[in-house]
């Protein structure tokens, strides 16, 4: 038997793509029928291979109440159901028998034409407790006419991993744009893995103020950070450290006890204080401005990195031409291949090529 590797038809190429349905405006406790994601014109035919997230918009099945639990049903491009009956959605194992999948593989793949739609019904909506995370994604490839971007030289691939850090603030803070320059050689992105460091960052910001961020050094045990701006008259700028216990910042004050130090001045003094630098790194934005206060001591720690188990952000990956590979930012859990994460699927299929001297850009949007 001869086996042929999968490839698109002659004259076409595939790009990874995800159509996103955000269900934050769904109403809990009722059905949401005839929902759909529209396949916009210009994006090519969409080949669906994976669906994730029904468990984040539907009631979890439970064996304590007969036939209780949210269900879904999806439809193909003709509007024909893809299941003989609605299917129970489920969350992750909680010690009782799992009633259904929280992610679906579509085999064989299902094709949806441009200007068509991916239709589905939801029965017994119950949005995930974390706000802004009730999301269903339809993952696959968009099939485009033409030739893919491929290196025009003989090449020999070698494994490589780029790593980047993003400081994710609270919901409403500006999106973080992570840019990784591609150095030395072209790079093919195969997989994304995400880690989090919980409780390792303190950010202090405000209108008209600089943003100062303390990042605990990895491995450092818990300590407190306190930032004082007002105080007694004519105080000098100071950084007082009790190693392993606390860092207290006091802004310089004028004759009336009002703060006079800028964030840049604080940064210079902080970086000259070895005991403080050993506990946390200080990052400043808008350093010419004064900084805000944190009167109540905040506990931080250089806890070890760990896999994501609850959502932190939505990610919008862009290809080498800065074109997004999803219709909207995608929940981080759905695209995380880290062992120990809920889905352990972070594969980019087919891989994305980033030529040398291009940027790998990911827009990070907080859901905290």
């Amino acid at each position: 038997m001869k086996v042929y590797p999968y490839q698109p038809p002659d004259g076409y190429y595939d790009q990874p793509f995800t159509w996103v349905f955000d269900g934050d405006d769904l109403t809990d406790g009722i059905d949401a029928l005839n929902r759909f994601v529209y396949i916009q014109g210009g994006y090519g035919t969409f080949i669906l291979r994976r669906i994730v997230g029904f468990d984040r918009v539907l009631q979890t099945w439970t064996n304590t109440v007969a036939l209780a639990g949210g269900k879904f049903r999806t439809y193909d491009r003709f509007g024909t159901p893809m299941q003989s009956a609605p299917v129970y959605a489920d969350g992750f194992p909680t010690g009782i028998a799992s009633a259904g999948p929280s992610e679906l593989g579509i085999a064989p793949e299902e094709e949806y034409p441009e200007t068509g739609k991916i239709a589905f019904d939801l029965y017994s909506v119950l949005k995930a407790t974390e706000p802004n995370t009730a999301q269903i994604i339809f993952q696959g490839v968009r099939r485009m006419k033409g030739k893919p971007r491929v290196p025009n030289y003989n090449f020999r691939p070698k494994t490589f991993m780029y790593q980047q850090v993003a400081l994710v603030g609270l919901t409403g803070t500006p999106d973080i744009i992570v840019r990784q320059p591609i150095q030395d050689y072209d790079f093919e992105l195969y997989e994304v893995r995400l880690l989090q460091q919980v409780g390792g960052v303190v950010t202090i910001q405000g209108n008209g103020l600089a943003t100062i961020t303390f990042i605990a050094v990895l491995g450092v045990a818990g300590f407190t950070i306190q930032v004082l701006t007002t105080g007694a008259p004519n105080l000098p700028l100071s950084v007082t450290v009790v190693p392993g216990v606390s860092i207290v910042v006091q802004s310089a004050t004028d004759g009336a006890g009002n703060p006079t130090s800028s964030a840049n001045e604080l940064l210079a003094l902080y970086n000259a204080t070895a005991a403080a630098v050993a506990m946390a790194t200080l990052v400043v934005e808008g350093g010419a401005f004064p900084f805000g206060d944190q009167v109540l001591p905040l506990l931080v720690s250089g806890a070890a990195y760990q896999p994501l188990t609850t959502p932190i952000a939505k990610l919008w990956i862009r290809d080498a031409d800065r074109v997004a590979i999803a219709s909207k930012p995608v929940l981080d859990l759905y695209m995380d291949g880290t062992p120990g994460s809920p889905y352990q699927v972070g594969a980019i299929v087919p891989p994305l090529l980033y030529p040398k001297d291009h940027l790998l850009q990911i827009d990070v949007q907080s859901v905290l």
Partner: protein
Amino acid sequence: MSEEQRGFYDRDFEYVWQPPNGQLTANQSLKTQQAINVDADFWCAGWYVPVATGAFEVLITDSDGYQWSNIPMNSAGLSVNGGNPQVLTPSHRFPAGGKIQIDIRDLSGATNNVQINFKGWKRMNPPVAA
């Protein structure tokens, strides 16, 4: 194609690396290597960390000085299961008599039992008939 026709044959093999005494001391930084046997090239198809009592970061470099990552990798992102290792695509060649350079640093602040396994195959020349 038979092994004779290919001119080599592959045999499953796994290099197992541990620090001296099987553990890193608290916050220890170690530059060390895993020697590759002289009997065959080793093609590494994947790697994993079956044992680690605490967090660490590691940078792998091959015999040509090629690094596997731009900065050391945190252990939390590495596979821990031999049945589900971090797959290298494509597999990575380490020549016979070469080495896997391992730069490792404990992040846990305590004694850290660590083992790192490199799974793949030895590519051997067929035995010569007497």
